[in-house]
Structures are given as structure tokens and as C-alpha cells.
């Protein structure tokens, strides 16, 4: 379980795999502070932490915007595109200076054949390699997983913490609206969304995992930096 303390007022971000444990979930609180209310405070957690938290909520490689929305749902704080863009550069610089300085870095998802970074998709550097490479089925699999995870969280929050539920409604809606039955009368039906996502996952998860593991084995042959940040497509040799 990963915990990152950021300040007394803010909460720790649990590793998503322990989401089953409702005690842990209880500790993840979103603030629901609208972005308009107050200017950025010095004690706001850094953007990278927020995004990493978002990734844990989603539990799978996701698009930048989705990760940012998940981060906002967790912390009530918004992240804009320009901030993310500059963050990508600074993560690399920071890693180059001292790789072990941080437990986790924001890293790109990597293409399964040549390991080029896939623009616009984020993973956490401390996830295992299969989870960080992306094959033909993976983007769909990851979307379905994220939908499942967020729906579960919403279902729990609706019962236990209306404030959290509020914060997650929007993100859940965006994800669940594209699975059959995920949204009913304008609001998310978590159980239906999970069922639909799972049904499709049952068809493709196994094949996807096999491809990912095969790719991961090859990725392991490359140096650590390339494992985290991928291979430059300009220099990709003929497959």
C-alpha cells in the first residue's frame, strides 16, 4: 500500500488494489471545493501527486484528461493541459537527476511492439510492466477496468459519503455513458455499468493479458529509463 502524505489537511491516497477494503476507502475523501472558490494555496498537494492519485483511482492506463478528472474528483483541485505538459518534461528531468528520489513517476503508456510512448496516455512508473504496455486490445480493456473501478467507488460513496459521491458523479458519468445501461435517466447506474464492463472484459481480458506479458518480457531487456519512458519513435528500427 502506497501512502503519500502531503500535509495535515489532506488525505492519503490509497493504492487502488486495496479498494476492496472499505476502511481504506473511507480515508479517501474528496473535498468538493469548487475551483472557483479560492485561489491556489501553498499547501495544495503538488500536481504530480494529484495525478498519481487519479491514476490509482482509475487503476489502469488512461488518457491525460481522464486522469486529471479523476484527480479532481479526489482532491477538488483542477489540473489544466498546460500544467500536464510541463509536468511531463519535469518528470523526465527529475528522473534523470535521481531515479530513486520518488517512489512513483508519471510515465507514458508504451506501445507493445516498439515501446514508443503513446502520447496522451499516462501510467504510474511503479506499476508492473505488463500494466504499462499497451497492445491492440489494451486501451479498451483499460477503459473498461477504469469504468469498473470508478463505478465501484461511486456505489460505495453514494451509500457512505455523499460528498465523495458528488465529486465522482461527473467522472463516472463520462466513463459509464458508453457501456450499455451505464447511465439511466441521466445518472450513473454503477451495478449495470460494472456488469456490462465485466461482460466485455470476459471476452478480451485473457488475450490482452497474454499479449501484454509477452511484450513486457521484451521490454525487460531494455534499460530502466526506456522501461519507464519508452523508446523514441524517430529511432525505431525496422520491426
Amino acid at each position, binding site marked *: 500500500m502506497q501512502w503519500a502524505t502531503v500535509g495535515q489537511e489532506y488525505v492519503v491516497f490509497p493504492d487502488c488494489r486495496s479498494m476492496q477494503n472499505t476502511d481504506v476507502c473511507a480515508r479517501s475523501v474528496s473535498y468538493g471545493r*469548487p*475551483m*472557483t472558490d479560492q485561489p491556489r494555496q501553498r499547501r495544495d498537494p503538488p500536481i504530480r501527486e494529484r495525478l498519481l492519485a487519479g491514476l490509482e483511482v482509475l487503476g489502469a492506463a488512461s488518457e491525460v484528461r481522464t486522469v486529471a478528472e479523476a484527480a479532481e474528483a479526489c482532491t477538488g483541485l*483542477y489540473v*489544466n*493541459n*498546460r*500544467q500536464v505538459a510541463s509536468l511531463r518534461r519535469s518528470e523526465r528531468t527529475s528522473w534523470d537527476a535521481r531515479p530513486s528520489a520518488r517512489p512513483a513517476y508519471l510515465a507514458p503508456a508504451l506501445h507493445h511492439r516498439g515501446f514508443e510512448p503513446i502520447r496522451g496516455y499516462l501510467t504510474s512508473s511503479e506499476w508492473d510492466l505488463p500494466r504499462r504496455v499497451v497492445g491492440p486490445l489494451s486501451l479498451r480493456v483499460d477503459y473498461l477496468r477504469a469504468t469498473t473501478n470508478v463505478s465501484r467507488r461511486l456505489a460505495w460513496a453514494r451509500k457512505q459519503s455523499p460528498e465523495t459521491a458528488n465529486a465522482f458523479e*461527473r467522472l463516472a458519468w463520462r466513463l459509464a455513458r458508453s457501456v450499455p445501461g451505464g447511465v439511466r435517466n*441521466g445518472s450513473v447506474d454503477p451495478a449495470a455499468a460494472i456488469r456490462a464492463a465485466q461482460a466485455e472484459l470476459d471476452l478480451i481480458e485473457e488475450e490482452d493479458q497474454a499479449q501484454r506479458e509477452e511484450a513486457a518480457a521484451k521490454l525487460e531487456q531494455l534499460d530502466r529509463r526506456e522501461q519507464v519512458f519508452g523508446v523514441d519513435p524517430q529511432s525505431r528500427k525496422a520491426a
Partner: protein
Amino acid sequence: MDALDLYMTVQADLTGRAQPRREVRHLHLEAAPLAVAVVQMASEPFAIWGALVGTDRTSPTLMVAPEPRNADIAFLAMGEFGKLLGDLIDRAADGPREHLQRRDGSEYTRCKTAPQLLVTNRAAVSLLERLGRRMRTAGYGGRIEVPEHVNRAGAHLGFYAEMALRPGSSLIVPATEALKRHWVTGQSAFENDHLASQLAWHDPELLEQIDHGVLGGMDPVNLSGGAAAERAETLPMGVLTDPDDDNGDLLAAVMQFNAKRDGRTDRRTVRRLGRGIGDLLRERALDAMWAALWVAYDRLASLPEGEHVEDRWTSDRSQFTKHADYVRGGGRMRSVDSARRAAMLLADWEDAQQELEHGEFLDDRLAQVGEIVAGRAICGTVTKVDREQFDLDKRGKPTKRRPRIVVQADGDFGLPLGTKLWWSERPSQTGALVEDLTVRGKRSRITLKVVAGVTGPLPEVGDQVMFSPYTREWHSQPYLPPDLPWTHVSADEPTDAGDLEEAKSLDEVLASEAVT
């Protein structure tokens, strides 16, 4: 192509000036129409970005939604516009009425006045239609609070937009179309859709009234219409602002507005912080459009009104009355026509088209030229009139009087024998069939057999006459409104609530855009 239009287009090209294609004005003009100069943001076709609106050319009201992609802000401006329009309509509907009786004895009323809308071109009409649609259905999903007068105003806009399609209607006037009806320029119809460009052909000096700098120092007096039009084209005259402005000053202003308001959408904040955008929109688009509207109005007003215009305006007032009473009585408009309504509409429009063509022809010598040259109307000198001609029965006894008129005319005529024509002096009374047609060289000799108005006045030898297919005969009945009431929406029909899942506002996107 109409022969007169072809001739006049040639003249326009050679002289560099617009040429008249009609002598009189074939649309009704109100003394104080509601002029609407309006622009949308390119990415938001269902909202007003800025508008100058009013019935007094010296004092328009500015309505602005500085960030029209935000629904709350958009409805501030749309609500304002809706209120103004609604008040005008209420005033007409609550005003004096004519009392009339149908053939079956039932009574009905007709408003003595109806508001007339004046816009630049058909694109503006389309924008009003889109606005109407959104305003009409807003609030039904339950997500946004929308006052009823906004819904009503939406219905009004839908009505006016539909009437733009009805031939001969003057309820809403797209200036470019009205001008095209009466003048011909030396450029294509597509280019004429740009109001300032079309007006440049009338007189380059008019451009100075529309925008001081547009001629760039060139002297309008000797400027050809084409050269002036090329300058005029640089002014926005439709519903979109100039892309250069969009990508420059306007983009920066909108971004700044969004940053400063920090998520607030209340009227006071929006008005205070949005002033700059309002000024920019006026400067870059609205002021010139507003001026152009009134220049066009004056051009049209300079023509005397055709005789049949009043009848068509009466028809407009009837339509308006029916609509206003229905909507103010709580009726709602459906967005898609039922098959039945569509069929009725088409039939009505066909009638209206006929009425318009006949009226224009009878009112206007220039309208007749095309018909004459095409050989569908006879224009010539009477050389013989014989009243003592009759139809004979089987035994040779005279039954009905059938006078003969012989006309000598230039040119030839593509009229089959037996065509029924009407004397332009008495278009619903004196009618004749073409009995004989002889062509000698460049002249024709036509014998007409009078079959209607046989005992009434006839032309005399030596008179210049015209006989044409145009008659007022069919119009002798008083105007009857169609049986069905206006569109009817039943209580349990689902409304377009799906619309109301308004996408997340673009505030965040804008805040992060870099201005390069």
C-alpha cells in the same frame, strides 16, 4: 433565365452600377421594423454572441453573451432578446384588431399591426431559427431554470423563421433577398448574399455610411461597383465574425473574461467584465451590420409600394394573429412537422407563390417585360374590335356573345391556340382565348376571342394593350385560415430533454489555451 434580368445584368456589368429590375416595391415595409444585427461565435451556433437590436436606428440596444458556450451566460443575452421580442409581439397582439366574418358566419379577428423583423441575410434567419429552437425547448429537462417568456420567445422566433420561406411574406425581411428582388448587380447571387457587397453596386458612397474606413481612402465617386464590392467584402455581414479577429483580439478578450470572472455567471459580473467584448463585437462587426441594415431599408423605401402589397401584408397579419393567439394561449410548437402539416404548408405556399407572381406582374411594368419577351404575354396595338360576334348552336342560332379583338404586336409568341389570357386593365373580369396567330416577318397578328366580361368595357382601336396569363380571378375569396390550429403538442409527448445534458463548460479548455 428571365430575359430582363439578363439584359439588366449586362447593363450592370458595363456601367458598374446596380440596375433596377422592378419599378415598384413588392414588399411591405413597416415604419419602424425591428432591426436585428446578430453574430454567433463560430463554435456555438445556438447562442447569441452579440447583437444590436431595435426599432430606432439611432438607438440600438446591445446584447452580449461574452462567453456564449456557457449556458447560464448565453441565456442572459437570449433572455434579454426574448423579452424585447415578446413585448413587441404582445403590444401588437393586445393592440386594435379588425373584426371579420367567415363564409360560415363564424367570427374572427385580425391584428391591425404585426412586428416586422429586418436582418442582413438568410444566414441570419437561420441563426434566429436555431435560437428559437433552443429557447423553445430550454428548461424542459428540468436542469436549468428558464422563465416562460423565453420559451414563448423561442416559439415566436420559430414562427418568423418559418414565414421567411412563405412566398410574398414581409414578416421577416432578409435585406439581401429583398434587394435582389428589385435590383440586379454585376455579380453572382452568392456574392450578393453579402449585404455591403451588394449595396456597393448601388452606390459606393453608401459604404461610407456603413464603415468609414472600408474604402481605404479611395474616392467612391469614380469607383466601379465591383471594385467597391471587393472592399466591402472584408466587412462581416453574416452571422460570423472575421476569423482574424477570432484568432486575435476576440480570443484574447474571451480568455481574459473567463479568467477574471472565475466561474461566476451572474448578470452583474458578466456585464461588468464583458464590456470589452461588447465593444469589440460592435467595432468589428455589429456597427457596420446595423448601419447596412438601415441603408438597405432606405433603398427599399425609396421605391413606391406596389398595389398588391397591402393584400399580402393582410395575409401576413392573419398568420401573425393566429400564431400570437396560439402561443400566448399556452400552445407549444413541435420541432418536426407532421406529414399532414407539411402537406398543408406546401399547398399554402404554392398558393402564396401564385399570388405573389400575379401581384408582381400586374403592379410592375418591368415584371411584364420578361413575360412579353418570352412570348407568354401579348403587348401590342389594337387594330380591330368587333362586338357583334357570337357562338352559334347546331342550328346556327347565336347563343353567347363572343367579341373579337385583333392585336398587332412586335415579335412572336409561344402561345398555343386556346390559351386563356386576361386584359391587364381588368385582370379578373375581361378574359379571352387566343384564336388565331399569324406571324409576318417580325410582327404578329393575334386574334382574341373574348369569353369573360363580354358585355363590359373592351379596349378600343388604336389602344396599346397587354393580355397576359395573370389574373386576380382566383383571389376573389376572402382569406381563410386553414382548419387545423397551429402545431399541436400533446401533454404526454416527450420533449427534447436529451438536449439538456449540456456538456461541461469550456472554461477549463479556454483557461489553458495558449495565445500564439
